[in-house]
């Protein structure tokens, strides 16, 4: 499978457009570049609850004037990666062009509503006690810090590097630098996670046309899953990420976009994918700053939840075709999109051909 073209909207708080309008507009640009697709796959998560409308894929197709097959894909906060993964299956089944549109909205209500809507990622018997998306990552953070003897100061490197990337990325949401001190002093969201360790609530859309015809960017995907129940997992490792990488043959890439709604998730992703040794992800980041989340990651580019995995692949395409932020141009790129800290993981490997 190859990428014909990709487009993204700036990640931000976008009050003036619905997800259907936003998704259709960005998808239209891609269709005008590559031609009509044989299938449309739409990935979204929060917007269904934000807009109280669950038929976004059908409306995007209508706005695009498409009469092709339409599917909506959902796999929690890994929905974007899941959509790309399914696109490859459709291309392999003989389709010529498959359009993936990731679109999501988080800011139509006050934050506490998005916080509640993100709780829907967590199994009901764990979420009912008030455990939030941030809270789940906080439980993992505390275990990781103890297991690998990592301090809050060391963890703060992650958001600092992410913000330093986003400054150079036009479509990123948080384009300002921060310091370790600021991270440590920012308000507590779910201890030990502070606001500056957390993704912003984001709106955005990304569209990618995949094709069976050769282009300069070839794509391979892989996916795997493990448990959703948080209590029954090793919260410092994502088995699904390890397995998905193995299925791809553990390819080496020059740069990575990993799924980091909170610092801990990015750290664990690098270690689970075998990019960094266990307990050494922050050291790896320090030594390879440009290679990790050149977009700024979920932390600083932003996290339009159901669209995030599509953004990552679009960014890989950008990095290979024209260069991305501090990273510049590369020949190979890996993206990782996970559902709740690795209940399932979707990996995409892109290379210049």
């Amino acid at each position: 499978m190859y990428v014909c073209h990709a487009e993204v909207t700036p990640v931000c708080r976008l009050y003036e457009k619905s997800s259907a309008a936003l998704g259709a507009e960005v998808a239209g640009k891609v269709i005008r570049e590559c031609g009509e697709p044989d299938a449309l796959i739409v990935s979204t998560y929060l917007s269904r609850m934000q807009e109280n409308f669950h038929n976004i894929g059908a409306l995007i197709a209508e706005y695009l004037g498409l009469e092709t097959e339409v599917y909506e894909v959902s796999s929690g906060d890994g929905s974007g990666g899941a959509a790309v993964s399914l696109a490859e299956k459709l291309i392999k089944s003989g389709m010529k062009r498959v359009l993936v549109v990731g679109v999501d909205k988080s800011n139509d209500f006050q934050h506490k509503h998005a916080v509640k809507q993100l709780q829907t990622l967590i199994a009901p018997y764990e979420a009912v006690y008030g455990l939030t998306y941030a809270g789940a990552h906080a439980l993992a953070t505390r275990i990781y810090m103890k297991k690998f003897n990592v301090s809050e100061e060391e963890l703060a490197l992650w958001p600092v590097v992410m913000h330093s990337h986003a400054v150079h990325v036009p479509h990123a949401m948080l384009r300002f630098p921060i310091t370790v001190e600021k991270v440590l002093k920012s308000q507590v969201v779910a201890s030990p996670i502070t606001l500056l360790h957390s993704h912003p609530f984001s709106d955005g859309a990304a569209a990618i046309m995949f094709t069976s015809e050769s282009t300069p960017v070839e794509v391979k995907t892989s996916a795997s899953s493990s448990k959703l129940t948080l209590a029954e997992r090793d919260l410092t490792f994502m088995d699904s990420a390890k397995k998905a990488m193995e299925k791809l043959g553990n390819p080496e890439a020059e740069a990575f976009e990993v799924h980091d709604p909170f610092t801990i998730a990015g750290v664990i992703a690098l270690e689970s994918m075998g990019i960094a040794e266990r307990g050494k992800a922050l050291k790896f980041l320090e030594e390879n700053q440009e290679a990790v989340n050149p977009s700024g990651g979920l932390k600083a580019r932003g996290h339009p939840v159901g669209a995030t995995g599509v953004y990552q692949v679009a960014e890989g395409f950008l990095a290979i075709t024209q260069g991305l932020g501090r990273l510049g141009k590369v020949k190979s790129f890996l993206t990782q999109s996970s559902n709740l800290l690795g209940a399932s993981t979707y990996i995409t490997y892109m290379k210049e051909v």
Partner: protein
Amino acid sequence: MEISPAHIWRNKHYRYRFEVNVCPKCGRAFRENVERCPKCGERTTRVRLPLNGKLLSWTKIVQVPDGYEDFAPMYVGLVELEDGNRVIAKLVDVLEEPKEGQEVEAVLRRIRVDGQSGLIEYALCFRPS
């Protein structure tokens, strides 16, 4: 109505008593009503988990979800029970900062209240013992 009568009713075995449905063949424990193990096909048996354990991890949730404002800030813990099973539940009566390894015991508490006229949801939570 935010809290469903059916949800409270079908989950009370776990929320009230920590009863799980265990597959005698593969040993997996289901917190929901699963009569036959989806994997093995064996009839599951109801087992009551112990009410004591130790804290493996915890978090103080300040940014609380809509509907939980009256409980803010909320503590949630990952607890290893005496028999080795692990559960996530609310921590209550947190009078000083929790510590990993701390002993905890289960007590029944309110976990959600549906406005002025809806249902009240009760569940076992953990208190430092």
